[in-house]
């Protein structure tokens, strides 16, 4: 029997009727139509489905949609402003950190959740922070460079 819940995603409220065993990933993609969050392994190993819930990066394939009821959720679609990409998105493009793009939404959100709480990390700390996000294309070098470039730009601006 379906349960009526409300998901707050990127500042908007979506009422949805869900089966209790549907994951947040299922509902974001299928019921709400936000397909920026990707299904990779569906088992918490690859991080492609990473979203931010109440400020913390989580694998949306491993939490039930009912668990997310009432929580503040950010997906990749919620990062860009009206006419500007988020600095992380711009950095990934500039630094060549995107090849097939499948890991990118999860990777950027994992980075964002980390930098929000740790604005001045070392490269080692950044690598640890994205350890839960696999990339088969890039070898991670450009990804780490992109994230560090955002750190450095923010530091220069005196944030």
């Amino acid at each position, binding site marked *: 029997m379906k349960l009526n819940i409300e998901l707050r995603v990127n500042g908007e409220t979506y009422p949805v009727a869900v*089966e209790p065993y549907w994951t947040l990933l299922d509902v974001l993609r299928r019921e709400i139509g936000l397909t920026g969050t990707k299904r990779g392994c569906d088992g918490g190993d690859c991080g492609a489905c990473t979203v931010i819930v109440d400020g913390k990066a989580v694998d949306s394939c491993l939490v039930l949609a009912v668990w997310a009821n009432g929580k503040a959720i950010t997906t990749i679609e919620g990062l860009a402003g009206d006419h500007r990409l988020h600095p992380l998105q711009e950095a990934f493009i500039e630094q060549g950190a995107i090849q097939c793009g499948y890991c990118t939404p999860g990777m950027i959100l994992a980075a964002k959740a980390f930098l929000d709480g740790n604005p001045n990390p070392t490269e080692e700390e950044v690598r640890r922070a994205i350890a839960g996000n696999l990339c088969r294309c890039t070898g991670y070098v450009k990804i780490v460079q992109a994230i560090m470039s955002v750190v450095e730009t923010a530091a220069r601006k005196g944030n």
Partner: protein
Amino acid sequence: MGFEYFEPKGVEEAIAILAEHGAAKPMAGGTDLLVSIRMEEVGPRGIVSLSKIPGLSNVDYDPDRGLLRIGAMATYSDVLASRVVHEKYAALPEACLLVGSVQIRNVGTIVGNICHASPSADTAGPLLAFDAQVRVVGPRGERVVPLEEFFLGPGQTILEKNEIVTELLIPAPERGSGSAYLKLSPRRAMDLAIASVAVKLTSENGICRDCRIALGAVGPKPLRATGAEDLLKGEKLREETIQRAGVAAAGESQPISDLRGSAEYRRDMIGVLVERATVLARERARD
């Protein structure tokens, strides 16, 4: 799937629901449960989530009683954010940091790690080394069980039907104690241990007054290497003594050969890890 989902607001309500719906399973973080449901196709017919029960997410240290309490819903991240845990129980956050990824640690729980009862559960070693106890609540009431008696085998605990764990109780280590957790795995994250060791020791003037050595991934359940512990107790913590303890611990391990490593390799590595973890714990006991 034909599935039921419950969000009880109290422990007693949770137990009553579990008793009434025989095929339902309790869920804390769900990072193990949801994977096993998907892989098994036919899984539990329902989930009893503990997430709406107040008071289960605490990581509280009581200095008067010298007791750390970790609630059933406390995540690895909650434990990692606790300063007192880093100060007094160093091996535990060391182990937490090696579980999965930050995404898993933000949702998964220590109590869930214990209840899933993998022989390689990272938090089991440190908790054994700290003489942790488990509060079990069920239809017949409450009991506190030493963690040493909690594990029965791979994926098996003493939990009876409709019983849940509500918290872990961990006494404060004595003055002059140090601890360490070492995990051998091919990757530095997102990996299971080939072998792991947790050591907690108490020393005075270089002599070991007490110690605990717990071994992971080398037996049907997390083990205490009590023979190795006896070799160290009362002795000066010199290199040769520590080496002998490592050899003894390796002999006490019961590894199997599987895709992660051969039994011989795991046994050898236990010897190495026990040495290294004991040296680390000794250094930290001095601070």
